[in-house]
C-alpha cells in the first residue's frame, strides 16, 4: 500500500500547554507561520477585539467582520513587531486603528447617504428584554453622533478601562488630546441624555433587565 506523504511543513513545536505560551512565544510562532500560533492568537485576543468592536460599532456582525480584519492584519504585519513580548499592545493598536477607520467610514457614508444609517441593526441574541434592547439602541444612536475620535476615546476609557496613556499610545495622540477628547465626549453625551427626558429617566431608573 503506498504511503501518502504529508504536505504539512515542518515547524518548531512549543512544549507543554500552548495556552500557557507567553505572548512573546506566540509572536515568534506567528512570525514563523506556525498554525498553532494562529489558533492560539485567535483564542487569546479575538474575544477582546470582538467585544471592543461590538461596543464601538454597536453591531455584532460588523464586529465579526472587523475582528477578522484585525487578526488577519496582525498575522500579515507580525514581521513589523520589534518586541515580541508586546504582542498584546500590537493587537490593541491594530484594532484601534481599524476601529477608527471604520467609524470614520461609517460617518462619511452616513453623510453621503440619502438614507439615515441604521442604528444597531444587529443586536444578536442578547439576554435582554425588548425594552432594554430599545434602550441600548438609543444609546448607540447617541454614540453615533459623536466624532469618531471622541467616540473611540470614550469607549476605550470608559468601557475598555484603558488608561489615558494606553489610549494615547494606541491612537497615536498626545495625552492632552486624549483628555480633551474624553471631556468633550462625556459632556456632549451628558447633554444629549439630559435633553432626552425619556432616555435619562429610563437610564436612571435602571430599567434594563439582565
Amino acid at each position, binding site marked *: 500500500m503506498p504511503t501518502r506523504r504529508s504536505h504539512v511543513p515542518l515547524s518548531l513545536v512549543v512544549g507543554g500547554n500552548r495556552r500557557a505560551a507567553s505572548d512573546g512565544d506566540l509572536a515568534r510562532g506567528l512570525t514563523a507561520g506556525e498554525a498553532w500560533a494562529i*489558533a492560539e492568537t485567535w483564542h487569546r485576543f479575538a474575544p477582546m477585539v470582538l467585544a471592543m468592536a461590538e461596543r464601538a460599532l454597536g453591531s455584532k456582525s460588523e464586529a465579526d467582520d472587523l475582528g477578522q480584519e484585525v487578526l488577519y492584519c496582525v498575522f500579515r504585519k507580525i514581521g513589523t513587531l520589534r518586541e515580541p513580548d508586546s504582542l498584546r499592545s500590537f493587537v490593541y493598536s491594530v484594532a484601534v486603528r481599524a476601529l477608527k477607520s471604520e467609524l470614520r467610514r461609517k460617518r462619511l457614508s452616513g453623510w453621503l447617504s440619502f438614507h439615515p444609517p441604521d442604528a444597531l441593526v444587529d443586536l444578536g441574541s442578547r439576554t435582554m428584554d425588548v425594552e432594554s434592547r430599545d434602550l*441600548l439602541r438609543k*444609546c448607540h444612536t447617541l454614540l453615533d453622533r459623536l466624532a469618531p475620535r471622541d467616540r473611540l476615546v470614550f469607549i476605550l476609557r470608559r468601557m475598555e478601562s484603558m488608561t489615558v496613556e494606553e489610549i494615547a499610545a494606541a491612537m497615536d495622540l498626545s495625552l492632552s488630546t486624549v483628555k480633551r477628547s474624553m471631556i468633550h465626549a462625556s459632556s456632549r453625551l451628558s447633554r444629549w441624555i439630559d435633553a432626552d427626558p425619556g432616555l435619562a429617566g429610563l437610564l436612571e431608573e435602571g430599567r434594563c433587565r439582565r
Partner: protein
Amino acid sequence: MKTTSGKPEDTRALAAFTELTRDGIERRTTEELDQGLNVLLARVAAGRSSPRRGIVRWSLMGGVVAVCALVGLQVSTGSHKHSQVLEPSVLAYQIEGGSVIEGGYLRESGHAGIKLLFNEGSQFVFLPGTRGRLRSVAPKGARVAIEHGKASFQVTPSTDRRWLVEAGPFLITVKGTVFTVAWDPSSERFELSLRHGRVEVSGPVSGGDIVLRAGQQLVVNLAKAETLIMEEKPEETVVESVGAATSRAIIPSALRAPLMRDKPALPSPSGAPVPATVAKLEGEHRWTDELASGHWDHILEEVERTGIKAALDKASSEDLFALADAARYRRRMDLAREALLAERRRFPGSPRALDALFLLGRVAESGERGATRAIAWYDDYLSRAPAGAYAAEALGRKMTLTSESGGSEEARPLAEEYLRRFPKGSYAGSARALQRAP
C-alpha cells in the same frame, strides 16, 4: 469596574449609559469563536495559496485591485490607513453539483442542483433545473444571474462586500441576508421571498427601487403589469422545487394578505413599468422620528391635542407603532393597547400588525391578572409568526408566565421547546433551570 464618580460630567444617567453600553454585549460562545477561527484560517490559507493546496478545488479570484478602488473620498477623509489595514479579504468559492464553463455559465452535473460555497460563509443554491451564470467574483463581492428557475441565497453580512443577483430584468442588491429568488422568462414572473435581512430590488417598476424587509415576499408579473408585496409565513419560504414555487405564488392566502396591489398604468406591454413603491405604504413617519429623538411626550401631547380617536384612525402604520412605543415607555398602557389594536384593525396585513400581537402581550402582562391574556397574545403571535422577530421572546415570556402561574411541571414542555428552537436565546438559562427543577 471603573468608578465614574467624582467628575463633573459623570451624571448618574451617563454612568448608567456607560454601564448599559459596556455590558450590553454577550461573550462569544466557543462555537462562535471556532467558526471565526475557521474563516480566518481559510483566509490565511487562501492568502498563501500554493499548488499543494490545489487539492481543495478553491478558485481564487482577485484581491489586488481593491486597493485601487479605495480612492477619492475615502482618501480625503483620512481613510488611507483603512485601505492599508482593512483591505477586503480574498473571496474564493467552491462548486458542488456542477461547474462553471465559458461565459460563467453554471452547468449542472447531476440532478441535484448546484451549490456555490464562498469562503466567507455565503452560500448560493441553484435548485435542480435552474439555469444561471456566475458573472463575476471580486474581493468586493460576487454577481450572479438567474436566467430561468429558482435559487436561494444565504449571504454573510459584511460592510465591505456587495452582492448582486440578476433575475431577468431585475437586479437585487444584497448586504447580508437569506432569501429565495425565482424568475420565469416565459411568464415574465419574478418572485423574491426574504427570510432575514434586507434587500433592494431594482427593475422595471416605477417609483424607484423597492426595499424589502424580512418576512416579505415580492411578486412582479410583468405581463399583467402587477406588483404584489405580501407578508409570508417564514416556513413557506423554504421551497423544494421550482414547480411548487410557481403554484404557491398563485394561491391567495389570508396569512399572506397583500400589502399593496397597484393596477397597471399600461395594459400590458411586456417590460412596461409597473407602478409600485413600498414608500407609499408607509405614509408619514412623524412620530417615528419623534420616537427616535426621545420625544415621547411630544407624541403623547399631540395625541391628546388632536384626540385619541382621531389619532388612532388617521395615523400611519409606523406612526401607530411609534405611538404604542411612546405610550409603553411612559407607562400609558391603555393608550399603548389602543394603538396596537388600531394597528391590527387598520393594517391587518402589515408586518407591524404581527409585531403588535407580541407587544399586546407585553402590555397585558403589566395589568392585573394579565398573565392569561398575555399568554393568549403570545400564542397568537407564535402561531402566525413562528420564526418572527419576537418569536424567541414570546415563547420565553410564555414559559415564564406559565411557570409563575402553573409551576415548573407545567412549564417544562415549553422550556424544552424553547431550548430546541432557541438554544442560545435570552431565556435559555431559565429554560435549563426549569428542566432541572424537581
